[in-house]
């Protein structure tokens, strides 16, 4: 595949995996947790690097998942002990992120880990760092993202009912005997691995937009969760493709353009959605 092809594929996988997982954050009204987890995973990546002394994807995934779950747990514990939820989120993730930044500057200065990269990602470098699988040379980050996307898809398909019910009515789920807390952490684990998978490509800040924007567009277009998931993946992929060509045209940052494309798609959906768009609501107001 060409250099351009790999970048487009990687970007689409970011859009699809984040779009899928992000839907559940939106319907649970927890999008700020995406912000928290995506920043905290930096600490997980640095810790994994310091412990294993390698930038191998598997160690990064484990480190990020553990720290992602610790973040969720710490936020929940602070909140339960009486701190407001938004304040708990703000305290936990900034602290974890700061520790990550300090550790990078102390121990990991000379390797392929720097703060700017962690924040913004650099998808343009991805096709140069490859390995060979079944005789095909594929970029490491793309391979990891492909595995993560398939894994997330399988988890969502297997636990769709449970994810849906615990999102809509956790109280009923408790009386039906569903392990509500476990399902919550399963979802947070998914958010963590998707965030770390997208990290190389778009970085900690822009992954939030990929987790939140496609699902929010989809939410405006349908009343079915399953359809919302599908639309969200499409919006994620569309942001990736438009973003890439936008970046070429402007000669600008690819990850920045992807998020900007997501923002423009959202604006269009928000105004023109036949179901919940601004125009539709405006028209309904006039006629009533």
């Amino acid at each position, binding site marked *: 595949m060409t250099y351009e092809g790999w970048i487009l594929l990687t970007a689409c996988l970011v859009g699809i995996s984040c779009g899928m997982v992000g839907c559940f954050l939106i*319907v649970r*009204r927890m999008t700020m947790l995406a912000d928290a987890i995506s920043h905290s995973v930096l600490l997980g990546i640095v810790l994994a690097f310091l412990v294993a002394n390698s930038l191998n994807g598997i160690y990064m995934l484990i480190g990020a998942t553990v720290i992602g779950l610790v973040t969720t747990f710490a936020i929940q514990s602070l909140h339960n002990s009486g701190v407001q939820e938004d304040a708990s989120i703000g305290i936990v993730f900034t602290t974890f992120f700061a520790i990550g930044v300090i550790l990078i500057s102390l121990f990991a200065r000379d390797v392929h880990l720097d703060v700017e990269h962690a924040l913004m990602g650099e998808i343009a470098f991805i096709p140069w760092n490859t390995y060979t699988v079944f005789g095909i040379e594929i970029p490491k980050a793309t391979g990891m993202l492909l595995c993560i996307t398939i894994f997330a898809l399988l988890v969502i398909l*297997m636990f769709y*009912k*449970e994810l*849906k*019910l615990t*999102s*809509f*009515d956790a*109280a*009923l*789920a*408790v*009386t*039906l*005997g*569903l392990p509500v807390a476990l399902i919550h952490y399963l979802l947070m684990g998914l958010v963590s691995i998707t965030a770390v998978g997208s990290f190389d490509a778009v970085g900690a800040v822009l992954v939030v937009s990929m987790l939140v924007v496609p699902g929010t567009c989809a*939410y405006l277009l*349908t*009343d*079915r*969760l399953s*359809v*919302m998931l599908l639309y969200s993946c499409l919006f994620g992929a569309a942001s990736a493709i438009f973003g890439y060509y936008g970046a070429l045209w402007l000669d600008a940052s690819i990850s920045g353009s992807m998020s900007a494309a997501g923002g423009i798609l959202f604006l269009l959906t928000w105004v023109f959605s036949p179901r919940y768009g601004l125009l539709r609501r405006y028209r309904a107001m006039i006629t009533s």
Partner: protein
Amino acid sequence: MEALNVKDLQVAYDRKAVLDQVELSIPKGSLTAIVGPNGAGKSTLIKAILGMLKRSSGQISILGKPYSPKNRNVGYVPQRGSVDWDFPTNALDVILMGRYGHIGWFKRPSKQDIALAKEALHKLGMADYADRQIRQLSGGQQQRVFLARALVQDAEVYFMDEPFVGVDAKTEKAIIDLLRELKQKGKTVIVVHHDLQTVPEYFDHTLLLNRTVIANGPTEQVFTEDLLQKTYGGALAFFSTNGDKRVMS
């Protein structure tokens, strides 16, 4: 036989007891009202029984066995305000959620589950609203969706948290018809109820609650001026019309 037995239940928020020394039993096949002033812990009682809130102490048994969700003999209707009505789902789908306990892991609702859900919708006069997004239903219709969902749970003991709040007359009638039908089938229904006027008409068993059990028994024995005053701390006004006592809270 007892549908519900609670021993030594205590629930505390921030180390302050909201419910204390609650001991009660509810007979099988009864329609029971839980009555008490705001802040008496009525919803808390249900949530603590069903394990949604942490209990400081207490043993719960349902139909003679320690309560476990795995026995699948309990149905629950939450307060209408407890869920997000903007959730991307429709009426039929919400009712199907009541079947999830029966369906089990990794499986999808079967044709039979869908048929049951449709039947429940029909029973509550909601057959035309199956595909409606739930925000677009009226308050009474939303409540009927919740009741239909409890119905398909096919439970023995139902707990309902203020099902009559903010509903229209048609819905109120649909709910009370349903409660009577459940009773006829030998089921037990325990309802948090706020409207004192209708207690004697709708319920044969009454639990008066204010942080602890004030009285618990057949409605005609428990629903008396003295005990109600005790429950509400003297904040009730009684007046009689044609010798028939009416209560205002």
